[in-house]
């Protein structure tokens, strides 16, 4: 039984060590570099949202649909990035 719990503890530690290694060794620079270059030449740095063709493309529509939470965007407002 002690051996079983020893195995569980070792497995948990291995998971923590493995994920920490992945987190620390991830090449953030390379990823940021290409996004930065695309953004530099296109002057567009908004995410490529996969929205439907009929969704609103207006950024300045400031009407609120929820009095209790006026900051909540409309469901069809994700498209604003193309018009910013």
């Amino acid at each position, binding site marked *: *039984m*002690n051996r*079983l*719990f020893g195995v*569980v503890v070792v497995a*948990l530690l291995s*998971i*923590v060590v493995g*994920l920490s290694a*992945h*987190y620390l060794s*991830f090449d*953030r620079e*390379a*990823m*940021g*570099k*290409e*996004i*930065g*270059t*695309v*953004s*530099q*030449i*296109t*002057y*567009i*740095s*908004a*995410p*490529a*949202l*996969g*929205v*439907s*063709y*009929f969704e609103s*493309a*207006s*950024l*300045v529509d400031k009407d609120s649909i929820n009095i209790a939470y006026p*900051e*909540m*965007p409309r469901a069809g407002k*994700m498209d*604003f990035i*193309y*018009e*910013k």
Partner: protein
Amino acid sequence: MRSSPFLYFLLLGIARQKGKHIGVVSISLVVLFLLSSVLFISSSLHHTISSQLESEPDFVVQRIRGGVRVDAPVEWIDKLVDIYGTKSVTPRVYGRYALSPKHEWALVVGVDFTDEQSHKGLEKLIGDTNLKQFLKSDQMIVGQGVARYLKSHFYSDSYSFMTPEGAFKKVDIFKELSDSSSLISNNMMIMPIDLAREVLGVDDESVTDIALSVPNDDEWSSIEDKIESLYYDIRVITKTDVKRIYENLYNYKGGLFLVLFLIAIVTFSLILYQRYAMVYSTERREIGLLRALGWSISDVLRLKFLETLVVVVISFVVGVAMAYIYVFVLGAPLLVDIFLGGDNLSHRIQLLPVVDLSVLSSIFLLYAVPFVASVLIPVWRVAVTDPKEAML
């Protein structure tokens, strides 16, 4: 371990009720996996977009007619350059192009490669490939989402655009951007500005909008007023507006999921409470026996607390690890569509690993406190009763 009879007894108890604990761990894993995945995606997108928005132009100037953006005349550029304090006034030509009507849309972006900054950027982007070769004919660079769509429709080398005049324009695919930039380039088709004008039907005297920078932050509000007073049909969008909207967008979604998680965790606690409130006769007998053998109430509670803690720690570590692998190694298939939309071109993005310790500790507390409470309260109720009654 053998030197501690209490610990040995604790492990023996856990091993004896293996089936019960595996069931609780399984439910916990589902709850923790979903919550951690959502928070990881949200924090990763938030971090990446925030850092990219720093390189965003300070102002974007558009022309509005009937509440809808229309192309702006190029002479606006001169007016904007004349305003003292503005810098890097850049015309932009871009627009959405329907690859398949009402279904898949790409973002056609025209780039002026005679501009020094764009030229250097292009050199970095295409690496050691010959730049002249790219510029000598009608060619474009496409994002991964567009590339996948085109390949699946047998456009592996070139694509024929239909211009607003109804003519076909064949453009060769020069290069595909890698997955690492898919967050912003997934639906992009980058091409020389004149070619983009032709594809989108933007004439030489117009641009889609104009981007500009104002290096001195203190002048932002006065320059915004100056620009707005230039014309009646002008709209100025500041970087602050864009940042605020993104904050709301992702906080709203993260917040929504947090509310759902709270509902799930309360339900989970109620199930556990009900489960332990009706402590099985064997468990009641076990607690009564321990009390009859001389264990104090605190000893019994300590035993059950540590037993629960083992379950909580195992569930937490495995649940968060599963979420990490799902989001940052596998790219969060399906769930990422909730954040980025799934109606248009499919996403296969590489999310930047961002693990916020405050988020992790919040998850742990939100999960562990109700769990431990829902176990200890019924156990305490049994432990304080007379051992004879408990063993009945």
